[in-house]
């Protein structure tokens, strides 16, 4: 009973206790609980472990198999690292939000039916918004609201899809689905919003740079990878995902190249990495799904590491804008080294984690003869190098000297970054343990001469191109500016349209009420005069009389009941 308790309950229970603990107690619970939860997930037996019947619906709270377990493990690991990084946080909101957020994400991963999935799906949305609001400014509040509206919208679409699915099939089990009916399309779109599909992606780049230093690290781990898991569970082998994923790897790299805020560069980069996973889901073979799961695992680690290093810079200097930074390696050398490890991992250099996971997906794309998709993915790999591999470390820690001389990151941040960096290298050098926990048997050797030389060539020649362009001054300079993206449609055009419609409605409302009011007020006043609380009709009706009549009526009803 206890050992099969839904892991999410552990997090929720801790979230209920944490606000009443002193600071040190909060910190210790935040660190101890993910360890406990991870250990529990590791030891879970496979199968459906926890049934509930709710209004005649069968809820499955713990569906444990190899796919859900690998996500449950990495989510607990990410929660531990994120909480260690957030050791300096003193408020009581962020710890609760972090626990509920991680707990909801893990609950959703183990959900075996659509209703439980929906419940936790909304849980992640609500809990995570507080990590943005914790920044405490009006702009952060507005951004958090935009984020929340879109995330909740995704949940509403999901529950609509689930209802239709129930009407269609008579069950709500969350199994593999085929696109075709309105129900499955709605569920697909709901997953797509959370997975930042093209044109549904801007909540990500909008909100992640607005969160707190540690909040962004925690945000980067769960929401989108939960969507990846849900797609892998529900829509593996859906061909349209191959093309969606290919577009996802492609367009963010152009935006990342010209974006100034390094945390937003990382958000674009996150979007591009999700594309690789989505392609893997679309291909849908056992090895491709292995690739998606392992890439999600490695990606959570190196993306968190990059967000941590940029966060440490923000924590010490107060800015994460490339145009304001540069030359920080002198006084923040350890952060620099950890950032370089993250950069090498995401760029998939051999001996780093990205290499042993991304090549699974690339290899599958090639062996299934998706030649154009494969070419796009290889191009996108060079693109990843350009923004996450070069831009982040180079413009933050090297490039021109900004004159800033911040102190090295605090010890707890260095620890969190150190552990994460170690894991990135460990997975890259010795991938077997990670391959062993993947959903299917792995039959793949990443370290062949062909793979290593091909990948090294791609990256080194691209680096050479960067060196050439940078020295010639062709590389786009870092300037204080923002870039429009698709969110302009609802932040600017949509808002203007709404404001216009609102003004029209108010003006016409005022005109109409002007016409009606004279007459309507007269009628209203007449009624008020005679039947209002102070009016003639109300004077002879003491409350007691009403109570007495009710008593009499009830008595009569009782009598009639006995007599019949």
């Amino acid at each position, binding site marked *: 009973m206890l050992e099969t308790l839904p892991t999410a309950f552990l997090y929720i229970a801790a979230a209920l206790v944490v606000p009443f603990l002193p600071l040190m107690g909060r910190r210790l619970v935040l660190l101890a609980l993910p360890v406990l939860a991870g250990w529990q997930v590791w030891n879970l037996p496979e199968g459906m472990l926890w049934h509930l019947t709710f209004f005649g619906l069968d809820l499955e709270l713990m569906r444990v198999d190899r796919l859900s377990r690998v996500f449950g493990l990495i989510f607990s690991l990410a929660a531990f690292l994120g909480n260690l990084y957030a050791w300096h946080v003193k408020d009581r909101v962020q710890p609760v939000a972090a626990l509920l957020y991680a707990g909801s994400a893990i609950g959703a991963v183990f959900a075996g039916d659509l209703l439980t999935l929906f419940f936790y799906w909304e849980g992640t949305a609500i809990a995570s918004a507080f990590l943005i609001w914790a920044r405490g400014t009006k*702009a952060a509040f507005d951004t958090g609201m935009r984020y929340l509206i879109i995330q909740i919208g995704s949940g509403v679409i999901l529950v609509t899809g689930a209802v239709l699915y129930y009407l269609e099939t008579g069950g709500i089990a969350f199994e593999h689905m085929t696109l075709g009916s309105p129900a499955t399309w709605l569920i697909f779109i709901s997953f797509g919003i959370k997975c930042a599909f093209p044109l549904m992606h801007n909540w990500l780049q*909008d909100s992640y740079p607005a969160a707190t230093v540690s909040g962004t690290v925690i945000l980067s781990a769960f929401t989108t990878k939960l969507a990846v898991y849900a797609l892998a569970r529900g829509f593996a082998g859906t061909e349209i995902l191959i093309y969606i994923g290919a577009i996802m790897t492609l367009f963010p790299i152009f935006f990342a190249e010209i974006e100034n805020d390094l945390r937003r560069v990382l958000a674009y980069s996150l979007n591009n990495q999700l594309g690789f996973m989505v392609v893997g889901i679309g291909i849908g073979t056992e090895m491709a799904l292995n690739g998606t799961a392992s890439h999600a695992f490695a990606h959570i680690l190196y993306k968190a590491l990059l967000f941590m290093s940029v966060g440490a810079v*923000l924590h010490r200097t107060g800015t994460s804008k490339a145009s304001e930074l540069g030359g920080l390696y002198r006084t923040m050398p350890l952060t620099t080294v950890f950032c370089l490890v993250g950069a090498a991992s995401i760029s998939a250099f051999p001996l780093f984690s990205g290499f042993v996971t991304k090549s699974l997906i690339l290899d599958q794309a090639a062996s299934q003869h998706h030649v154009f998709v494969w070419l796009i993915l290889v191009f996108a790999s060079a693109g990843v190098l350009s923004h996450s591999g070069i831009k982040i470390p180079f413009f933050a820690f090297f490039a021109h000297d900004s004159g800033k001389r911040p102190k090295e990151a605090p010890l707890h941040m260095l620890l969190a970054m150190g552990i994460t960096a170690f894991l990135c290298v460990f997975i890259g050098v010795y991938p077997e343990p990670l391959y062993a926990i993947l959903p299917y048997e792995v039959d793949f050797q990443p370290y062949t001469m062909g793979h290593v030389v091909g990948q090294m060539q791609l990256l080194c*020649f691209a680096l050479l191109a960067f060196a050439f362009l940078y020295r010639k001054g062709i590389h786009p300079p870092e300037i204080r500016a923002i870039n429009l993206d698709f969110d302009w449609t609802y932040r600017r055009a949509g808002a203007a349209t709404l404001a216009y419609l609102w003004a029209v409605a108010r003006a016409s409302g005022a005109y109409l009420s002007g016409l009606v009011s004279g007459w309507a007020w007269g009628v209203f006043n007449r009624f008020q005069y005679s039947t209002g609380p102070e009016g003639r009709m109300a004077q002879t009706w003491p409350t007691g009389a009403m109570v007495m009549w009710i008593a009499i009526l009830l008595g009569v009803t009782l009598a009639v009941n006995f007599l019949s």
Partner: protein
Amino acid sequence: MDKNRKPFPLLGRMLGWVDKPGSAMRLVYALGALCLVLFALDFTFTPHGHFGFETIPGFFGVYGFVMFTALILAAKGLRRLVKRPEDYYGDTAVDTEDYPEELLDKVDYDA
């Protein structure tokens, strides 16, 4: 430049090599040499690619160089289209505001 201040951390001083005059060019030359070696390595083993063009010696190198350059040029073009001033979204976005000081821990290295 940094007289009368605590010296930088040891690792930081070691990394300081990159700012010595000529270091950057040395790095570029080393990178160029590495690229040549990688290109030469293509002739040392029998590749088994899924597509014919994969096995052309130097394919990945050329593809990486050309596509990276194309990406940068395309991004420059995109910037002309979408660049806007930082306060474009006003106070509904965090782009212009400073991160709240009380949540930070801004310390100089010699403090």
